[in-house]
């Protein structure tokens, strides 16, 4: 017996926001309609099997001009592990100065995803 399930997927790859359908047969993507670029096709195919999201949040900084440093996952994180990553980052504190792009947490939770600083934080004046 072939089990065919059709998922309506809204692409989040860019602001155009294409909507389309992905047909999955026995856990494998069988057909896709409505997506208009390769990035969208890749997103939709992944979304029905193993959805992932970029994660942005902040970590504490001491000695800086600001109390918080914004960070971003270098690559998307499995959706079901987002809150685990946030919990991990909530316990992280760094010291100023920090340079944009610096790795704040490497290989978070063994997911193979680094979290990087998205701005400079200079020393408090």
């Amino acid at each position, binding site marked *: 017996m072939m089990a065919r399930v059709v998922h309506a997927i809204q692409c989040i790859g860019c602001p155009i*926001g294409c909507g389309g359908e992905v047909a999955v047969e026995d856990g494998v993507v069988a057909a896709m309609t409505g997506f208009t670029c390769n990035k969208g096709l890749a997103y939709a195919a992944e979304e029905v099997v193993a959805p992932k999201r970029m994660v942005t949040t902040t970590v504490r900084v001491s000695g800086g001009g600001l109390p*918080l440093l*914004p960070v*971003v996952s270098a690559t998307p994180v499995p*959706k079901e592990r987002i809150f685990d990553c946030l919990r991990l980052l909530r316990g992280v504190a760094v010291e100023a100065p920090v340079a944009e792009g610096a790795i704040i947490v490497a290989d978070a939770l063994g997911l193979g995803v680094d979290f990087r600083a998205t701005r400079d934080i200079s020393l408090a004046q």
Partner: protein
Amino acid sequence: MREFSYDVVTIGGGPAGMAAALAAREAGAERVLILERDRELGGILQQCIHNGFGLRRFEEELTGPGYAHRYVDMIGATDIDVWLDTTVLAAEPGGVVTSVSPHAGLQVVRAKSVVYAMGCRERTRGAIRTPGSRPAGVFTAGAAQRMVNMEGYLPGREVVIVGSGDIGLIMARRMTFEGARVKAVFEIMPYSNGLTRNIVQCLEDFGIPLYLGHSVTAIHGKDRVTGITVSQVNDRLEVIDGTAFDVACDCVLLSVGLIPENELGRAAGVVLDPITSGARVDQFRRTSIPGFFAAGNVLHVHDLVDWVSEEAAIAGRSAARHARGELAASGRERPVTAGEGLRTVVPQRLSDFEPGKMSVRFYFRAARPMGASLLQLWADGALAFERKLRVVKPSEMIVADIPVRKIGDAAALDFRVVPAPDRIEADDEIEEEA
């Protein structure tokens, strides 16, 4: 009081001000100055820590601070002057810009060209006339964003969001990430005012309900907000009796629209567009005052910073050419109007084209959501140009390059959006004329 002179001065050091200053310098303005009231360049981008910026401009996905950083670095590599902590008090016709700062006091700059790049501000509770008491805990979404992302405060734990603008949607996810419970988003219109991608990744991902066609009819609480009353509205946006229900919360975030922060332009007597609340400009981003240009959210509210940078570069180049005496007079000015199906168009008038100009880029806001549509240019009452649009949403700016040969010699240009006669293939949307 010290006096200075510059070729081009941008008022504001956010994405518009930075892009305008860079473009002005590249176009040959020798002395360029950015006036910024905050402690650093970057404007609102610095608090927008989420990703999704720069796909068009840099062909990669950046965070707000990341996008700002690119421009801050580019500015740093030039001899453009930047005055931080500096608030402009007045910019008068003739190019006299008066500013004040805690370290330098009152300063006057004589500028050959001025670019308005002050951005926009959020509509507040007063702007939507929400009834009820006046407790603490009611914030605009952007104010909450600054608290959470830059200052380290959580404005509440049980949150209701009023309005479905992008900042509200982004804050729904952000508050959820910080451990708050976001109970619902209420939108008075029958459609969302945010980008579809944000509905998906900020609400649906976390099971946050979006109620369309609902209005807040009361805010409760004496010292601190304790809840709100919400009712359904009909298609005339009138409250439907018997549909009211209460939602308990300790925080209400408002995401109910943005308005250009244009006090300086208004005070100087710049002619404004009553719908955008920004200046009426031509394709060079000239305002009605000679030597004054405008770009970015102070001109009209954008949804993507990439378009802000691009528009500001036009204003910056024009400002540089004006400063050098190379920007020709407007010549014959032709009005451009937003007709059927559209709410706004920028630019709102056309001046004489530069020699060799092939097309002019126009930016539109739709009046209401529509499916497959045609963007039409009617020149002196005759259909001159048509382009297919796969889908039309008021929350998503329409950008179209109109060939100069289609505009021709017409005295008046009217743009419209009408339903497409047949189903349009998805590929048609990216078809653009050279």
